[in-house]
């Protein structure tokens, strides 16, 4: 399902997952609003344990973990995982990079807030970064800290590094088998690990392999319970800019639905302004 830049793995073009596995309209509205989608119990325990053993025992450099172990790729080949990826970046997403992130036991230094890579020039298209947790990762173990709703705010790498605490920041405490799918632009940072256990998080970044119009299960995308996810997705930290933020996610909703007539903006102002 995932295409590669190298010859290590050839792309496998498939017809797509069964519709029951495909990202739903509610899940897409949540992603568009918050910039991430946390899905628990995606990977079964047996596979989590196998991947955890690979992480702890094989001593493979983080950037080669994806290509040199089979179990991690098996996790991303599960239909329930592929269905979410397909809904976000299409049938043949392009492999960007991956890394096994490790925070050693008792490493007490947090990362600075940042957005990954470099400021992105695409107005609406997006990459995703899947963060997979193979073991339970409670708050004291230093799960990634994210700022919900920050994905559409332009920040260049660590230009936000002098920020320290923000109202609504969220520690991604996760159970084994959880994958968090993030928009490439979301503000985040690694956290201290106060436990005596090493913390592992595997990150896979994928680019869209096609225009991201209507890739998810569009059933009910105009239903009130879907629209209200976007309408009510205000974050306290957004302050005076919250309405602008609302309109930015309304534009992203038009992009992912492929429906330029749908209007979920503030006071439906896009329609009022004829844009």
């Amino acid at each position, binding site marked *: 399902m995932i295409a590669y830049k190298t010859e290590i793995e050839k792309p496998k073009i498939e017809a797509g997952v069964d519709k029951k596995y495909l990202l739903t309209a509610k899940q897409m509205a949540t992603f568009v609003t918050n910039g991430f989608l946390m899905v628990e119990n995606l990977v079964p325990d047996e596979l989590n344990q196998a991947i955890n053993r690979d992480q702890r025992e094989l001593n493979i450099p983080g950037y080669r973990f994806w290509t040199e172990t089979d179990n991690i790729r098996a996790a991303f080949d599960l239909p329930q995982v592929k269905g979410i990826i397909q809904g976000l970046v299409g049938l043949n997403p392009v492999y960007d990079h991956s890394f096994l992130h490790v925070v050693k036991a008792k490493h*007490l*230094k*947090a*990362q*600075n*807030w940042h957005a990954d890579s470099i400021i992105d020039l695409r107005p609406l298209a997006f990459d995703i970064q899947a963060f997979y947790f193979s073991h339970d990762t409670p708050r004291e173990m230093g799960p990634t*800290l994210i700022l919900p709703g920050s994905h*559409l*705010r*332009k*920040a260049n790498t660590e*230009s*936000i590094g*002098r*920020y*320290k*605490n*923000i*109202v609504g*920041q969220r*520690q991604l405490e996760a159970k084994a088998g959880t994958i968090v799918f993030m928009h490439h632009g979301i503000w985040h*940072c690694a*956290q*201290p690990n106060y436990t005596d256990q090493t913390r592992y998080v595997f990150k896979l970044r994928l680019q869209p392999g096609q225009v991201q119009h209507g890739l998810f299960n569009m059933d009910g995308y105009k239903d009130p319970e879907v629209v209200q996810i976007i309408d009510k997705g205000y974050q*306290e*930290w*957004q*302050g*005076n*800019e919250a309405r*602008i*933020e609302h*309109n*930015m996610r309304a*534009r992203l909703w038009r992009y992912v639905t492929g429906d330029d007539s749908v209007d979920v903006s503030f006071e439906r102002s896009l329609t009022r302004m004829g844009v």
Partner: protein
Amino acid sequence: MTRLRQQILILHLAVSSLEGRTVAWAFFDGTLAADQPQMQSGDTEKPPYESVLAAMRDGWMVIQLPTLPVYVPGHEHESGHLPYEYVLERKVDLDSL
């Protein structure tokens, strides 16, 4: 050498008024030695002051007011850094600690 050290408190407010609600905060403490931990990302959930005005009442001096956002035609519905960033200062005599 002077025994005065600077502490910098950065408060981001929801609006441009100094009475606006604090939505983000950072503290850089010049009284601490290099091996002492500074505030770092994610280590507190509640701001130290509810507004810049509240911090002023507690003795903090405002040394920077942000300029107001400039809305560039064609880019009005875009956002970036937290816009209402106030920098406050307190000078501390190490001998008084």
